[in-house]
């Protein structure tokens, strides 16, 4: 494993731990960024389809274990996100901040919609505002945090 791959693994691990610290230990809800989705999206860009799905499945299980909504919804969502993120390298190639921002934004938006559908929360809430307001705002927040983290990551001389 190269130094760069180690660096990426550490970043993904730190993001997962950071998410659990913010959301579980400190109990911060939406005010804290969704670092779990960020970890899956960033990790998937560097992983092959299988490991990316595994990363998504693992992260999803963490969330499902603490959720009382549909069990498995987060696992399935993150696994799909992992595979799509991994496959996205075949379709979209880019290293710029703009591309990375778009990738993270679309990934998080897709995550929120997929999760909403799989958790069947479509029936119990305002779908339009959830998809067109809540999800984009959350995606924007996560994208901002992701760009800052990746900026620091690149400052170390590593690529995304």
């Amino acid at each position, binding site marked *: *494993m*190269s130094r760069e*791959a180690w660096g*990426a*693994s550490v970043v993904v691990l730190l993001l997962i731990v950071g998410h*659990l*610290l*913010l*959301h*579980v*230990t*400190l*109990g*911060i*809800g*939406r005010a*804290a960024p*969704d670092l779990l989705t960020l970890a899956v999206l960033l*990790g998937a860009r*560097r*992983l*092959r*389809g*299988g*490991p*990316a*799905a*595994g990363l*998504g*499945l693992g992260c*999803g*299980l*963490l*969330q*499902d*274990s*603490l*959720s*009382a*909504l*549909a*069990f*498995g*919804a*987060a*696992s*399935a969502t*993150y*696994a*799909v996100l992992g*595979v799509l993120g*991994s496959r996205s*390298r075949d379709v979209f190639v880019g290293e710029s901040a703009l591309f990375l921002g778009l990738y993270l934004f679309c990934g998080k938006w897709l995550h929120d919609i997929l*999760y909403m559908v*799989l*958790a069947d*929360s479509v029936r*119990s*809430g*305002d779908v339009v505002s959830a998809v067109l307001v809540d999800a984009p705002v959350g995606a924007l927040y996560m994208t901002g945090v992701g760009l800052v983290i990746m900026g620091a990551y690149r400052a170390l001389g590593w690529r995304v």
Partner: protein
Amino acid sequence: MNDYLDEPRRSRWRDLSVGAVLLAAAFLLLFLPPQYQTSVRRTMRATVLRPFIMAQSDLLAGGLRRVDVTELRAQRDSLSAVVAAQASLAEENRRLRALLGLQERTGPSFQAAELVRVGMEGGGSTFLLRIGSAAGVHVGSPVIVPEGLLGVVWDVDRGTAQGIDWTHPDFRASAMTADGRAYGIVEPRRGRFREEDRLALTGAPFHTDIPAGTRVVTSGRGGIYPRGILIGTVVGVEESETGWRKSYVVQPAVRPAAVTHALVGVGDDHADLSRLWNVAHADSGSTAAGQAGIPPGSDR
């Protein structure tokens, strides 16, 4: 994390197959029987997530201790600082004393527990309790606070338990008006904001008018909640269903976000708890919800 762009096609196909299998496994989780879901949840909470959950409890306890230190320093510094610092401490004190008073009156069928909230997606209506099956907590144990019914235990480990509060979409409670004139099922109604979440008393007889201000309590039917736990107060009619049943909007007695300690039902003793909230007799309907039956002067 090795690059795979230059790898042979066969390797990529194998990799895609692994991905497809994992993807299928992830979707299979959606259809996993509840008993297996519980096992997975417990395992994850007892292993990977345990440090984070325990750390939250420790932080909570540490926060309380820091309040005490602040209080002592404030007393030493000046009287005005004492007054300022006592605001939050007095609130905490009031809650704990109220809970203590409630526990004395509920007897050994309820155990006090620390309540921990999780900020994960999908966990908004859930909480963790630092008490488990070792103390007699079981799936379906009611969780109450001095203001009334908070929720119900959903899943139990030996030392911890997970519960849902009344805002959870799956929450249901068999209920009645405090005077026993109308029975129905209480279920949550999602508002535009979480602060607007309400309860609805559904299935009430059409011919019975329930005036605003009437208190709604658990009826004891269904074997989950003991009879007489305060749920909330009727604030108006929600809708009339097909001309033979009515639904009423109920202002819940408990605000889940403010709860840090609660009492959890242990054992199967379903005694009538009406006396705790003074709802044993016909309700005048004029009092607001949330009067937990705290003995006068006990906590102030």
